[in-house]
């Protein structure tokens, strides 16, 4: 057994203290210790983007991040951007523009898009497509997802 280590995280504006096995990924800790199941485990190798969360302001694949490496860091998950009584503009746009089918990739898409729009509020279609290169979707064919993200500023 690996020696457990102390981990302090700020997750969705809440202070969390944990004792974890250093082998565990940030995704695993978010889902299983903190019961935040919005970030999904897809490929578990950084290719599909379903596990995307925002770490210190930047979109990252939480499956490819050791939780231990994030000590003292700030994490925002899809639960953190979703208002209690409604949807984030990106979520609303995906619903209204038909950018959702099975939904497995959606939370990762949302987090990537939120980080993208945060840095670049008026992206071109090419910038949106390039920004979503690390988020795989087997249902929609991407067109409506990209269009939804472009439509956010109009909403």
């Amino acid at each position, binding site marked *: *057994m*690996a*020696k457990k*280590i102390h981990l302090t995280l700020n997750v969705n504006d809440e202070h969390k203290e944990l004792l974890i*096995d*250093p*082998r565990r*990924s940030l995704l695993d800790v978010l889902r299983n210790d903190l019961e935040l199941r919005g970030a999904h485990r897809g490929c*578990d*190798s*950084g*290719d599909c*983007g379903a596990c*995307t969360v925002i*770490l210190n302001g*930047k*979109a*990252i*694949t939480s499956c*490819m*991040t*050791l939780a*231990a*490496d994030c*000590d003292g860091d700030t994490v925002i998950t899809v639960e953190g951007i979703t208002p209690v009584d409604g949807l984030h503009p990106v979520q609303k746009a995906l619903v209204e523009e038909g950018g959702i089918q099975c939904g497995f990739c959606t939370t990762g898409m949302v987090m*990537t898009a939120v*980080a*993208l729009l945060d840095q670049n509020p008026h992206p071109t279609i090419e910038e949106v497509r*390039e*920004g979503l*290169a*690390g*988020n795989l979707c087997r249902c929609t064919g991407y067109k409506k997802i990209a269009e939804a993200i472009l439509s956010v500023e109009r909403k």
Partner: protein
Amino acid sequence: MKSFDYFSPKTLSEASEILSKNNGDARMIAGGTDLLLKMKAGRLAPKAIVNIKRIPDLRGLTFNSHLTMGALTTLEEIKGSPIIRQHYPALSEAAATMASVQIRNLATVGGNMCNAAPSADLAPILIALNAVAVIRGAKGERRVSLEEFFTGPGKSVLGVGELLVSLEVPKQEGRSIYLKHSPREHMDIAVVGVGIALQKNSARIVLGAVAPIPLRAKKAEEEVMSGSLTKERIERAAKIAAEESKPIDDVRGSVWYRKKMVEVVVKRGLMELVNSD
């Protein structure tokens, strides 16, 4: 994944000491995007993991007489940095060809070098730009031309207890370019990567993914320097570069195909540099 001891040193000397004590059984982690994949697949099982992300000496991006990039500079920072985009556009373009934004926000230039994958995208362009690796260990600091840094697939000149601290890139007078050939535009490694830097009195052509280490095509460089860069000379240089490459057959391409693509990509790169003058 096998269990390991976890360390998060705050200084270079502390990190170096932990690495030395573990005598080669310890691995540094920065972005982790290569290391964790190998550990998850069971191809690597280090006894200790040393998180180097909390070491301030490994950070920073400054430009005065040359560019100094801390080893922890992320690929996304290289892609987006106004300094790099202005003075070394080919370097930020090379970073932009890599992975996805999520991975680029994690992965570091130091990791891309120290993992020493033959296909590492930043290696050919950094070698073409004549970068120097600044290395520190128990015995102090040493500087190695990045061209000499790689010794084989996954291998570099770093000794036990040594860390890559930063990369220094001299100011460029001429033009440079990085071209990557891979089946997909994103999320794929290079079948052939070519970094070219043309200066007034030198030409550096560096090939990635077609030899055990990033390879300078020195004969092709000589051809480029032997006279004015006509279309015929460029075609000859590209053919020579293909002859100099030493690719292997693998799932991404055969030896024949890779050599052919070296010729195509070197020609394309030189033509672009000539036409942009």
